[in-house]
């Protein structure tokens, strides 16, 4: 599963156009926010998926809505890793970089491998744009790009020519230039045009001029590659051998939205999704708001407190109550989550983590809310905490979160992050009839002595310590719940000291009981050995790749990945103790690390990166080698 790079050496310097087969390629489209790079990247991803590659993507937006054109702050990028084998990351280093303007070149060049292909829109390297990007000399002229395979293409000019026959304003004409660039890259990597042509036809069906222009641009870019001998070679990345089935591309936020709707349907519950917009969680709201036909009730609340209150209110009424936010919003929701713990109502709280503390880096990724999810509430206040490991995994985790919330009458946290939320990968569409069922029971008669004369006991528990979920509207089960300590069994307000301790223990034990019903922790690699690399959340793919590389080098290293952070799988301590060393890579300053050390007393060490972006495979690989 190594990624081979087309280095300068690998490209035979002849004028015959040759096709070279590659195992995997990482390409990044970048340009100004107005240049349509997200679109180009998405199209490229779709086509690559359709031709059978495995894919993984990483978009990178500017923080501003519309930063001034041409500035460094305005650069938007989209990275695609596509390959002929199973991949788990969007790639460390770029094999090819498309830079639509000087600012894009400046901010992205450092990620291009030595000798990598650099496709440059030379028309954009005007004095003014160079200046905006902070270049004092023109990199196209000062020899500073000599370590790369530079393809200077006057994209503006060529594109304008291509669309000239269509009646468009110059500005409209220029808007097509992402398709020209895309067309050229399609040629470079032997991608078919048809899927994108189809997309253009559908998207612009109401605007024939733009339809025509974009079509022309795309083809012109392709033909330019074919005709002009810019490069003596183009590349082919064969199909990956992936599990047969029907696939689609999915981002983490999409998978969460779809997962929640699916879970609601499996449980036969209405989904009430209440949320206050916040980057990078808002898209879940946007997705779900489109799904009215699926019976989804979305509420845009006045703030995060209201949103979680609404979700809990819906849960009290028997619905699937869900809320999502990012870190600052979790702060605000924490008091109400405590109420859900006390009243033992099922509610799912999604935290799409971003760079912190405070407002931090809203558009960047991080994993620094784990301890907040665990402990960010007053009193002893345990909740279940799960974390998806990849975009597609969000679907499964959504289902599992709902299942556990209902089964254990408990709030469940889902810790996603900006990387998972916006990144995409292929998703094997599940067969509906193979999906797990989610059972829910609501009592319809008092549980006292079986007769109506003993009132309903809302805190009488089953063997798993779970209390009944009696719904308002059910005759004879009238009862009151609330945030004051409850008397065991009756649920009446109780100030009794011993009862309080009992209830604190019961709440903890109930959450601990979840461990009895979740899979044990498995490892990828030898069941014991020199090093265990254990992580959680979005670092999965990168860690796996790094560990596999180290394994191929002969190291006795294994990977474990925690989907369940509270409670952890019951064999976690055993697994940890089977390796001489334990490494915990996290995009924070060592949060899981503290939990593992404190809980299992293993001298684990952390690999910590807090830069608002994911690990590179090489970073983890290096650390592994350094430890062995």
């Amino acid at each position, binding site marked *: 599963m190594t990624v081979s790079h087309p280095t300068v050496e690998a490209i035979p310097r002849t004028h015959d156009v040759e096709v070279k087969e590659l195992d995997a390629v990482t390409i990044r489209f970048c340009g100004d926010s107005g240049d349509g790079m997200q679109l180009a990247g998405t199209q490229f991803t779709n086509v690559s998926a359709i031709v059978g590659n495995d894919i993984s993507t990483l978009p990178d937006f500017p923080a501003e809505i519309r930063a001034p054109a041409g500035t460094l702050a305005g650069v938007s990028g989209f990275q695609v890793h596509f390959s002929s084998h199973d991949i788990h990351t969007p790639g460390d280093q770029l094999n090819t970089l498309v830079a639509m303007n000087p600012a894009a070149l400046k901010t992205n060049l450092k990620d291009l491998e030595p000798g990598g292909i650099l496709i440059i829109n030379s028309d954009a390297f005007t004095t003014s744009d160079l200046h905006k990007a902070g270049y004092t000399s023109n990199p196209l002229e000062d020899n500073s790009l000599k370590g790369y395979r530079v393809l200077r293409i006057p994209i503006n000019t060529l594109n304008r020519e291509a669309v000239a026959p269509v009646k468009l304003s110059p500005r409209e004409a220029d808007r097509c230039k992402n398709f020209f660039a895309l067309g050229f890259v399609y040629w470079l990597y032997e991608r078919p045009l048809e899927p994108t042509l189809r997309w253009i036809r559908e998207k612009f069906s109401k605007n024939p001029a733009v339809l025509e222009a974009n079509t022309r641009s795309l083809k012109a870019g392709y033909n330019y590659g074919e005709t002009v001998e810019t490069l003596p070679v183009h590349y082919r990345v064969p199909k990956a051998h992936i599990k047969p089935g029907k696939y689609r591309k999915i981002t983490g936020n999409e998978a969460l939205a779809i997962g929640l*709707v699916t879970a609601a349907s499996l449980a036969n519950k209405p989904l009430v999704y209440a949320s206050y917009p916040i980057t990078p969680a808002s898209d879940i709201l946007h997705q779900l708001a489109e799904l009215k036909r699926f019976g989804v009730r979305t509420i845009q609340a006045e703030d995060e407190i209201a949103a979680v209150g609404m979700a809990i*209110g819906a849960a009290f009424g028997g619905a699937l109550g869900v809320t999502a936010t990012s870190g600052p919003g979790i702060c605000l929701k924490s008091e*109400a989550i405590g109420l859900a713990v006390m009243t033992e109502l099922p509610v799912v709280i999604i935290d799409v983590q971003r760079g912190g503390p405070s407002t931090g880096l809203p558009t960047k990724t991080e994993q620094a809310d784990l301890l907040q999810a665990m402990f960010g509430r007053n009193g002893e206040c345990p909740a279940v905490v799960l974390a998806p490991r990849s975009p597609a995994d969000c679907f499964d985790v959504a289902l599992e979160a709902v299942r556990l919330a209902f089964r254990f009458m408990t709030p469940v946290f889902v810790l996603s992050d900006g990387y998972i939320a916006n990144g995409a990968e292929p998703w094997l569409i599940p067969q509906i009839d193979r999906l797990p069922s989610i059972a829910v029971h609501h009592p319809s008669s008092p549980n006292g002595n079986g007769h109506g004369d003993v009132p309903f006991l809302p805190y009488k528990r089953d063997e798993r310590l779970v209390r009944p979920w009696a719904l308002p509207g059910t005759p004879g089960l009238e009862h009151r719940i609330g945030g004051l300590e409850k008397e065991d069994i009756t649920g009446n307000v109780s100030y009794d000291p011993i009862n309080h301790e009992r209830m604190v223990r019961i709440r903890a034990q109930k959450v601990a009981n979840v461990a009895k019903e979740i899979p044990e922790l498995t490892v990828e690699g030898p069941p014991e050995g020199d090093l265990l690399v254990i992580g959680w959340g979005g670092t999965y793919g990168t860690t796996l790749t790094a560990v596999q590389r180290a394994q191929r080098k002969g190291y006795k290293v294994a990977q474990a990945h925690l989907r369940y952070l509270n409670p952890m799988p019951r064999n976690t301590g055993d697994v940890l103790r089977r390796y001489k060393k334990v490494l915990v890579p996290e995009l924070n300053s060592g949060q899981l690390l503290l939990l593992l050390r404190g809980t299992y007393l293993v001298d684990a060490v952390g690999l910590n990166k807090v830069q608002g972006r994911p690990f590179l495979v090489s970073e983890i690989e290096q650390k592994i080698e350094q430890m062995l």
Partner: protein
Amino acid sequence: MSTATSLPTLTAKDLASDQEVRWCPGCGDYSILAQMKKALASLGIPREKFVFISGIGCSSRFPYYMNTYGFHTIHGRAPTFATGLKACRPDLSVWVITGDGDGLSIGGNHLIHAIRRNVDIKIILFNNEIYGLTKGQYSPTSRTGTRTKSSPLGSIENPLRPLSLAIGAEATFVARTVDVDINHLTETLRRAAFHRGSAFVEIYQNCKIFNDGVFDYATDKSIKADNTLYLEHGKPLIFGKDRNKGIRLNGLEPEVVTLGSGITVDDLLIHDERAEEPSLAYLLSRMVYPRFPECMGVFRAVQRPTYDELLNKQIDEAIAKKGRGKLEELFASDDTWVVE
């Protein structure tokens, strides 16, 4: 909210829970509890359809004492829980119980947003102009100068007038009543129950322990007739022990006039709770003792679509238009491809 017809009729007693009521002896909350049970029993709605949701405060203990479904939530947030509940359970009759601290201090934002959305919930604010449960600090409705534990030299804040605020927040139903006027209280709660949409009711409530007597001017039998004005739709604004005083409009300013000596009932302002624009209701909400009698009754009651109705309507319409969504469809909502 469905109202069942052929049910065994409820009595107020059926609505009493088995929990010991723990307010201070003499607290105005007792009367509100009693009248609430009376009012609800008269509605023809089965007991299990009622839900009481409260925040935190003396008043917010209310749900424990009602033999209905109840949720004693956290401070200031009750309207949010109620909104979430009503959004998925339009069949329930949802009541929010709050206090002047709970509803107007920490909870002011949720209150105004529930009101503007016109969620079909009944919000009953027990205004005792004090924080009772935390043992006597001033509240956002305490009058300037009020001396309390947290304002030993007198409060320096301007009080909010709950009804003015609600009207400023697009309320469709606002009313005021007082704990000891039991018939008016019962009737006002019934009016709130019948309103489709957010109904906001302010109840003057005496806190025996920390603010005893602040509403004496409006409750003391010997003077209350001169200090309060009971609103009736379509009727002129008359008040006073001898029913010989009224409110006349002078430009946009209300003024107190005495009937006789040239001034007749025809000169008086006529109450119109159904006015489309809330200017009258607003103006009435500004009348404050001692300059004016304070108005009791329904200030405003207009029909607007409710939030929960509209929410469900969008769903129904979407389904009617394109059919109920199927998971297969959802999964395939982006381009798909098949690997063989």
